[in-house]
C-alpha cells in the first residue's frame, strides 16, 4: 500500500516547477498579462512542450507518454503554484480524455498521433454540458454546429476547439473554419484567456461514441475538475508559503508579526485546511485512473472542496500581508484571481455538489 505521488511524478512536477521559477518570474508574468511580451509566452509554452506536458495523457503507441491523471494532477499543481500563463486543462487533459472515451478507433489513431506531435491543439468549451449561462446554447446537426457558448478555455495556441453540447455530444471544430466568431472575455484572471464563441453552420467532426453515450463527456469533465482543483491547490500553497515567509520578516511592535498568535493561527488554519486537499485530489485522481465506481463523486468532491478551501486561503494569505497584500506591487492578487477562476470553470461549487449528490443516488 502506498498513498501519495511516486518518485517519477514528483520528479516531473519539480521539473515543471523549476522551469517556471527559472523562466517565468512574476515580472515576466506581469508583462505577459499586460500583452507586452507575447514571444516569451510562446517560448514558455514551447519549453513546457519540450518537458512533455502535452503528451502526459496520450498513449505510448501514438507517441505520447502514456501516463495517468495522477501525473497530470501533479503537474497541474506546479502550474498553479507558478501561475503559468499557459493552457493545460483544455488541450492536454480534457481533450485527450474525451478522445480516449469518445472517439472511434480511427479517430483516436489520427487525433492522438497529431496531438502527440503538437500538430493539433484544442481549446475546450464544455460549459453547455454542466450549465449554460446567459441563454447560451449549441446545437449540432448534420456535422454542423450553430449557436453560442461562453468560457471556452485555453484557446491561446489552439488549432481546434473541442465543444460539448448539453447532451454530452463532443466534436472538434477547426479554428480556421468559416462561420466562427471569437470574442475575448476579460476576467479578473489575466494569467489565462477565456473566450466566447459563436458558430453558424460551422463544420464539426463528432467523436463517434459520443453520439450515443455521455461517458466521454463525464470522464473528460471529471478529469478537468480534478486537474483544475490541483491548480488551485498549487496556487493556494504558494500563497501560504508567501504569507509565512512575509510574517517572518515584517516587524511591528519590535517583533516579527509571525510571532503573534493571531498571525500564527491564521497560517495554521490555512495549512490545516489545505493539507488534506493534497490527499483528496490524489485520491480522486487515483479513483479516476482506476475507473472506480466512485470516480465521479470523488472528482466532484475534490473540485468543490478544494475550491472552498482555496477561497479561504486566498483571503487569509492576503490579510497576513496587510496593506501590501492589497497592492499590485506585490502581485499576490494574481494567485487570488487564478483561484477565483478555478472555482468557477468546469462548474461552480454549488453546481458540482449537486452533481455529487446525484452521483451517489441522493
Amino acid at each position, binding site marked *: 500500500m*502506498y*498513498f501519495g505521488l511516486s518518485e517519477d511524478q514528483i520528479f516531473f512536477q519539480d521539473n515543471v516547477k523549476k522551469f517556471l521559477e527559472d523562466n517565468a518570474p512574476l515580472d515576466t508574468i506581469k508583462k505577459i498579462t499586460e500583452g507586452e511580451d507575447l514571444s516569451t509566452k510562446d517560448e514558455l509554452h514551447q519549453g513546457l512542450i519540450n518537458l512533455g506536458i502535452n503528451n502526459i495523457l496520450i498513449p505510448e503507441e501514438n507517441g505520447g507518454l502514456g501516463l495517468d491523471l495522477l501525473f497530470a494532477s501533479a503537474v497541474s499543481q506546479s502550474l498553479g503554484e507558478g501561475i503559468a500563463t499557459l493552457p493545460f486543462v483544455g488541450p492536454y487533459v480534457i481533450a485527450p480524455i474525451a478522445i480516449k472515451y469518445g472517439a472511434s478507433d480511427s479517430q483516436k489513431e489520427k487525433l492522438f498521433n497529431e496531438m502527440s506531435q503538437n500538430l493539433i491543439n484544442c481549446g475546450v468549451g464544455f460549459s453547455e454540458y454542466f450549465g449554460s449561462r446567459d441563454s447560451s446554447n449549441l446545437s449540432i446537426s448534420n456535422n454542423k454546429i450553430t449557436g453560442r457558448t461562453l468560457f471556452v478555455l485555453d484557446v491561446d495556441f489552439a488549432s481546434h476547439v473541442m465543444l460539448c453540447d448539453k447532451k454530452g455530444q463532443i466534436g472538434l471544430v477547426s479554428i480556421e473554419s468559416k462561420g466562427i466568431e471569437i470574442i475575448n472575455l476579460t476576467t479578473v484572471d489575466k494569467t489565462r484567456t477565456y473566450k466566447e464563441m459563436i458558430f453558424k453552420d460551422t463544420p464539426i467532426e463528432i467523436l463517434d461514441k459520443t453520439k450515443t453515450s455521455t461517458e466521454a463527456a463525464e470522464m473528460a469533465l471529471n478529469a478537468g475538475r480534478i486537474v483544475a482543483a490541483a491548480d488551485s491547490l498549487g496556487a493556494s500553497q504558494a500563497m501560504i508559503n508567501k504569507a509565512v515567509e512575509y510574517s517572518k520578516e515584517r516587524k511591528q511592535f519590535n517583533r516579527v508579526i509571525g510571532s503573534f498568535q493571531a498571525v500564527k493561527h491564521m497560517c495554521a488554519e490555512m495549512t490545516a485546511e489545505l493539507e488534506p486537499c*493534497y490527499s483528496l485530489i490524489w485520491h480522486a485522481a487515483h479513483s479516476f485512473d482506476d475507473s472506480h465506481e466512485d470516480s465521479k463523486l470523488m472528482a466532484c*468532491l475534490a473540485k468543490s472542496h478544494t475550491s472552498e478551501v482555496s477561497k479561504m486561503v486566498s483571503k487569509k494569505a492576503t490579510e497576513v500581508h496587510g496593506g501590501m497584500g492589497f497592492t499590485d506591487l506585490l502581485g499576490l492578487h494574481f494567485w487570488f484571481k487564478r483561484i477565483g477562476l478555478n472555482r468557477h470553470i468546469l462548474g461552480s461549487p454549488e453546481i458540482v455538489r449537486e452533481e455529487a449528490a446525484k452521483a451517489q443516488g441522493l
Partner: protein
Amino acid sequence: MNLNYGPEYEDFTKEVQKFCKKYSGVIITNKKGGALTSLSSIANSDKSDGVKVSRSEWQKILIKNGYFARSIPKEYGGFGGDIDIIKNRIIAAEFASNRIPPPMGGQGIDMLVPTLLELGTEEQKQKYIKPTLYGEMIWCQGYSEPNAGSDLASLQTKGELIDENWVINGQKIWTSTAQYSQMMFCLVRTEPDAPKHAGISYLLIPMDTPGIEIKPLVDMTLNAGFNEVFFTDVTIPKENIVGKRGEGWTVANATLGHERGSLTDPNATMNRLHMLIDRMKEETINGKKVIENPAYRDKLIKLQGKVMAFQSNSLRVLSAKLNKGQDVKIAGMIQKLVGTELRHELEGFCIDIMGELGTLFEGSPNIRDGGSWQFTYMYYLGLIIGGGTSQIQKNIISERGLGMPREPKTQQET
C-alpha cells in the same frame, strides 16, 4: 499510488469478518470506566440480542484472537505479535462497520502501557501491564491542575521524599474515570528549585491510599466524566516512579502523541456521515424528505468533501508509516485539530437537519438515535479542548510545522 493491502490481508480481513459475525450484537455487561464507553453504550443501545460478556472477558477474547494488544509481549499479557498497522486498521474498520464493541481504551491502555513498555522497570511491567490490558486495573491520568492547563509544565502538586516514601500534596483536575480507577499516573513537582520542566517526576499512585479525595465534576453532557482529585499527605513507596527524579516531563511526552492520535478516528467519522445521510433520508419537513431540501443537501455534500479529505489525509499518514521516507510531517500534525473540529461540525449538522427534534435528550419522547447526536456534539467539544486545545494545536502547527517563531517569553518565565 496503490491502495491494495495485498493478498495476505484479504485472508486476514475474512478472518476478522468471521469473528465479527460470531460476536454480532455482543453486550458488554459492566462497562464502567469513562465517557468513551458511555458513548458506545448509547450507540449500541438498540442491540439486545447478542451474547453477554464482562468487560474483562471481552478484553481476553480480543487479545487471544490478536485483535487487541497485538504487539505487546505475551509475558505482559499481550498477543505477542509483530507490529502491523494494516492489521490494526482492518480490525478497527471491520469492528466499526459491524458495530462490534472496540477494545477498551482509556488512559491506562492508551498512555500508561506504552509508557511502561518504553521506560518502565521490569518489575513495573510485570506488575501493571497485564491487569491493565484485561480491564481489571483502571488508570486515571493526573496531569492538569486548576492553574496548569495548556501551560501544563507549571504544575504545582508537590511530592517530597520522606523516609523512603513520596508524600504528595496538591490538587488535580479534569481527571477522567478517577472514581473507577485503581491507579493514577501522576505528574508531581519533586524538585522545586529546578527549572519548571526539569522539576517534575512521573509517579504511580494507588487510588485507595489514604488522603485522596475525589469530587465529581459534571460536564455539559450531564455526565460526571471528570473529577477533581485532592491529595493531603498521600504517602506512596519510593519505587513508584517511572524514569528518574525530575524526568517526568520527558516520560509524559514520550506518549502524549498516542492520545492525540486516538481522539480522531477517520473511519468512525465516515461511518457517522453515513448515519447522517440515513437520518436525512428518514426525516421530513412538511412531508418532504430532508435529503431533498436543497439547502441541507448542499451543506451535506460540503461536509462530505471535508470528511473525504480527512479520510484521504489519514491514508497518507498511514502510508508514511509503511513506507519509509514519505514526508507527511504536516499531514500528521493537523489530525487532532481537523479531526475533532470536523466531528463536532458533523454531529452539529445532524442536529440542525432534525430542527427542534434535534434538541431532544435523555430519553425524551420522539428522540432520535437515543440522543446520540446531541451527546456526541457536546462530547467532541470536550475533545476539541482536551488533549491540547485547538489553539495549542495551531501553535504546534505554526511553530513546529511552519517554523514560525515562538511567542516571546514573559519576564517572569525568563
